[in-house]
């Protein structure tokens, strides 16, 4: 009995830790959610449809792309195909997240899989391996989902009120978040830093030759494969040679 309470307590604790780790996502998602909602309203979606898309799809970049294509009069099949291609990268990210979640059956993992985004993936997979658990991820994704839906609702309410300089400045939020998650992990690991630099250049070059969503998938996989041969991802500051 006591053991059960202990387990429940630690589940709640893991969930709360996930919530805490997800707080930066609020600042990333609220502004982008607002930007998406303004685009969707202009494209001709009703307020309800705009929020429903965030509830059902939960993928920022593709929702913005869909709003843009819809406004230009693209066919439904084309938008859905473009969404599929753009979100194929989540296959890799979801595999990384699921691999770190050891407990729980398929059902719980299917629930967690709904919450895999670029941001939840980035935060979850750069945590210490011991911190990763099912409830930790559920906490993280709850914050991200709530922020995304709230941002969309806020955008529906506020479309037309925001000063343009402020809504333009919000565009950096997503990138600032990725940069500040990525950089500290590179300290003291020169080879990992070089791999990251190479990936950035490789993806920039590749983006000239193919749609950027394909370039992203290709360079993520190719450069990680390359890194297997000469980078040790576990080498940290204290482990300097």
């Amino acid at each position, binding site marked *: 009995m006591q053991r059960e309470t202990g387990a429940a307590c630690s589940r709640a604790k893991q969930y709360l830790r996930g919530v805490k780790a997800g707080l930066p996502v609020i600042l990333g998602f609220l502004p982008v959610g607002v930007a998406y909602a303004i685009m969707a309203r202009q494209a001709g979606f009703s307020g309800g449809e705009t929020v429903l*898309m965030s509830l059902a*799809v939960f993928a920022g970049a593709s*929702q913005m792309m869909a709003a843009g294509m819809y406004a230009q009069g693209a066919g439904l099949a084309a938008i859905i195909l473009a969404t599929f291609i753009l979100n194929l990268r989540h296959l890799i990210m979801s595999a990384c997240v699921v*691999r770190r979640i050891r407990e729980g059956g398929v059902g719980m993992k299917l629930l967690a899989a709904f919450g895999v985004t670029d941001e939840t993936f980035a935060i979850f997979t750069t945590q210490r391996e011991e911190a990763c658990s099912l409830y930790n991820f559920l906490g993280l994704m709850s914050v991200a989902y709530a922020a995304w839906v709230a941002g969309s609702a806020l955008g529906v309410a506020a479309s037309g009120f925001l000063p343009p300089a402020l809504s333009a*400045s919000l565009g*950096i939020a997503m*990138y*600032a978040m990725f940069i500040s998650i990525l950089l500290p992990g590179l300290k003291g690991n020169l080879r990992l830093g070089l791999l990251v630099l190479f990936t950035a250049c490789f993806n920039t070059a590749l983006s000239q030759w193919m749609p950027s969503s394909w370039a*992203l998938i290709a360079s993520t996989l190719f*450069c990680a494969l390359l890194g297997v041969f000469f980078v040790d991802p576990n080498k940290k500051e204290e482990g300097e040679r």
Partner: protein
Amino acid sequence: MSRALLLIFGMAAVTYLPRALPAVLLNRLRFQPQVEKFFQLIPYTAMAALIFPGVLAVDTGRVEIGVVGGVAAGILAWRRVPVLVCVVAAIAVDFLLYQL
């Protein structure tokens, strides 16, 4: 069903499919160390590819908006400033840049 609703449910389906597949297929699989290493490196390469070249096009008319905001976040992050503060600082720097 309206056109918009059809689109929303279609998008929801094709977005959830790649997310859900690993949850079904990878359940309780164990991997070779080399494959483990590959999975450990993916977060780094994926984030590098998510940042570049996208950050240069935050404002398609003004490259410096993405560069200055990104560098500001980078400097703070290198000094282990919390992510939340880095994001606010980058937004503030870009806001100031737009006032110039």
